[in-house]
């Protein structure tokens, strides 16, 4: 009898050991955290991210959850301020006891959370900041989804060079004076060198600049007719608006933020059918299927908030859930990280290129599709398949 009791106790201890070691998992639930920009001017990004997590979680839960456990999303707002990201993640870890993290604000915000992520061995899928600083050096528990700005600009300029073939091309670059702008310039430089085209002018501007009259006038002076527009949202729209005032006839390559409805609404009046390279689908049957799901699982207001960040966060949580599923009932952070690391060609149902983290940087979704805006009806036409540059 005594031996039986001891064996039973040992079994009980063994079965609860993993839960005791790794918070956020119970017999019925897995808590996934999400630190996001829910307030402030960039809150439309955070809202879109939250909707992506919600749709993925609802879909997974309806299909029976992760080995019977339902996913619960706990969102914290950081207002796009790194110090608050740190605070928010501390709360998610200490108070809400999350198991993993998906969807992680901007680059500086992710970096501010990085010591906590590493210290807690927190499986993390970075979906909104695919910056080199996030995946180089690689952190064991951090997995990134998204292409690089460098590739995005190189890909667009390559498309312009090979397919649109402007006469007497003079290339110009306008970019922010930070790491993001540096990545864009890297892709621009690669294109200039490879295609042997004329490098007309490169201009830097400070983050938050609102008036680009002088910069664009310089572009006009230099005869630029292929512009790598490194401005984002209002900045990009201002650059195009100034170019239109000066009647500049040009092909434009843009940052992927310019395919979001708020950006398009600001930029389209300038009348440029600009290009965008993105690692998620912006239209087509796969996108339509995703929107059907969105209408099923999200409210009308949430569906209205959907943009590219919704899709990439949906992909992130789906990949994370797949890794957790592969761990079976003994779900631990170590196992999830191991399975994420082994993830190969995970099918995103066409929302993005298949996800594989089995590379040194634990980076996936780097393949980009090129789209072109129709400024008249504010729609995008897909020009290429997902391609690695």
């Amino acid at each position, binding site marked *: 009898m005594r031996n039986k009791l001891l064996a039973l106790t040992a079994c009980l201890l063994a079965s609860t050991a993993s839960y005791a070691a790794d918070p956020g998992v119970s017999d019925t639930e897995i808590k996934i955290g999400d630190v996001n920009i*829910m*307030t402030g001017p960039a*809150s439309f990004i955070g809202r879109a991210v939250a909707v992506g997590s919600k749709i993925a979680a609802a879909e997974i839960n309806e299909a029976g959850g992760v080995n019977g456990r339902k996913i619960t999303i706990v969102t914290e*707002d950081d207002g796009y*301020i*790194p*110090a608050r990201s*740190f*605070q928010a993640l*501390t*709360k998610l*870890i*200490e*108070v809400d006891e999350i198991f993993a993290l998906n969807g992680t604000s*901007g680059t*500086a*915000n992710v*970096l*501010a959370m*990085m*010591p906590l992520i590493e210290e807690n061995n927190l499986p993390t899928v970075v979906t909104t900041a695919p910056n080199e*600083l996030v995946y180089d050096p690689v952190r064991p528990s951090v997995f990134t989804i998204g292409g690089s700005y460098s590739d995005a600009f190189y890909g667009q300029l390559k498309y312009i060079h090979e397919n649109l073939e402007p006469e007497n091309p003079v290339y110009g670059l306008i970019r922010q*004076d*930070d*790491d*993001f702008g*540096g990545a864009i310039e890297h892709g621009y430089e690669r294109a200039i060198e490879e295609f042997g085209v004329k490098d007309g002018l490169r201009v830097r501007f*400070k983050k938050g600049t609102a008036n680009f009259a002088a910069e664009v006038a310089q572009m006009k002076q230099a005869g630029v007719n292929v512009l790598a527009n490194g401005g984002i949202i209002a900045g990009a729209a201002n650059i195009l608006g100034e170019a239109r005032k000066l009647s500049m006839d040009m092909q434009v390559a843009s940052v992927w933020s310019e395919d979001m409805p708020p950006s398009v609404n600001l930029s389209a009046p300038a009348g440029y059918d600009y290009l965008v390279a993105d690692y998620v689908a912006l239209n087509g049957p796969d996108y339509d299927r995703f929107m059907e799901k969105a209408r099923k699982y999200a*409210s009308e*207001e*949430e569906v209205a908030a959907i943009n590219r960040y919704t899709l990439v966060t949906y992909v992130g949580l789906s990949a994370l859930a797949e890794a957790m599923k592969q761990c079976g009932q003994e779900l631990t952070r170590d196992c999830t990280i191991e399975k994420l690391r082994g993830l190969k060609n995970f099918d995103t149902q066409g929302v993005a290129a298949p996800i594989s983290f089995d590379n040194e940087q634990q980076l996936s979704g780097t393949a980009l599709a090129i789209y072109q805006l129709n400024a008249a009806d504010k729609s995008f036409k897909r020009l290429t398949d997902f391609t690695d540059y």
Partner: protein
Amino acid sequence: MRTGHFKEATGQLVALSDSRVVWFFVALLLAACVAAPFLLGNYQVTLMVSALIAVIGAVGLNMLTGTTGLISLGQAGFLAVGAYTNAILMMDYGWPVWLSLPAGGLVAALISILVGVPSLRLKGLYLAITTLAFAFIINHIILYAEPLTHGPNGIFVSGAKVLGVDLQRGKALYYLTLGTTVLVVLAALNIQRSRVGRAWMAIRDHDIAARVMGVDLVRYKLLAFMVSSFIVGIAGGLISLQIRFVNIDVFALILSIEALAIIILGGLGSIAGAVLGALFLSFLPEVIRLFFETFADSSSNFYTSYVYEIRGIAYGVVIVAFLRLKPEGLIGLWRDIRKYWSNWPLAY
């Protein structure tokens, strides 16, 4: 019932407090602060650390703006200088934290002379704009001096150990911050009742009259800038230890506005007010969050869609309402409560 205080010597007039009751409550408060990490969870301790850093920064700004009357919107810049100095010295030059942290304050104080000198002839909004411009300049320098500051990449800060104790984690960081806060508050209280403090107040009340009385405006204004920036630089260093990462985005200009809001809400010119203001604004979002989690219908679509906006608006409304109803700030409220308590049951 208390009948009032009668002072017989100058020493009694400048004493921090002649009331044993006050000292008793101060001791009680300190004991509670020391015991806090053993009673609270890690998240609450993290919040306390952030609040204490805000107290240090607010006390620093209060010396410049509240006591001397020089409005500054450059606090984010001084915080960045302190944080970057600490991070660079620790990570790139291998300095121990007990040297790099005060060095952060020192560098901020030295740089403040550069801001202080052109600001000597400026007052009010003109000075505010000059200090704001300084924050912009610091921002640019950090971005462009890449070999020194690592530019936009930022710096991870780790290895702040003293006698084998990691000062960047849990209780150790809390006690480091608490100790620094106590030192800063004590120093500020002592400076304020010294010749320097009285000179600053004279400058604030009427700088021409102060000069006529023999106060050297150049010297005392620069001193105010230096002392304030030293304290704010220390706060910046502590931020770098807590977050363990510095990047220019961590020191957004909104921090300067928030610092100003803290000392106005607390009560301009009062150190206790700066402390109360910093604690109030640090914990207000958390209180609002708890309030909504307790009383709002979290399952409603309206709540889930707009919870963050609602919280943000509530935060703003509380501040506006407070300033409208109590323009002297939290310290004014505290004085009213104290007066009511002293005079009870008589009305006043």
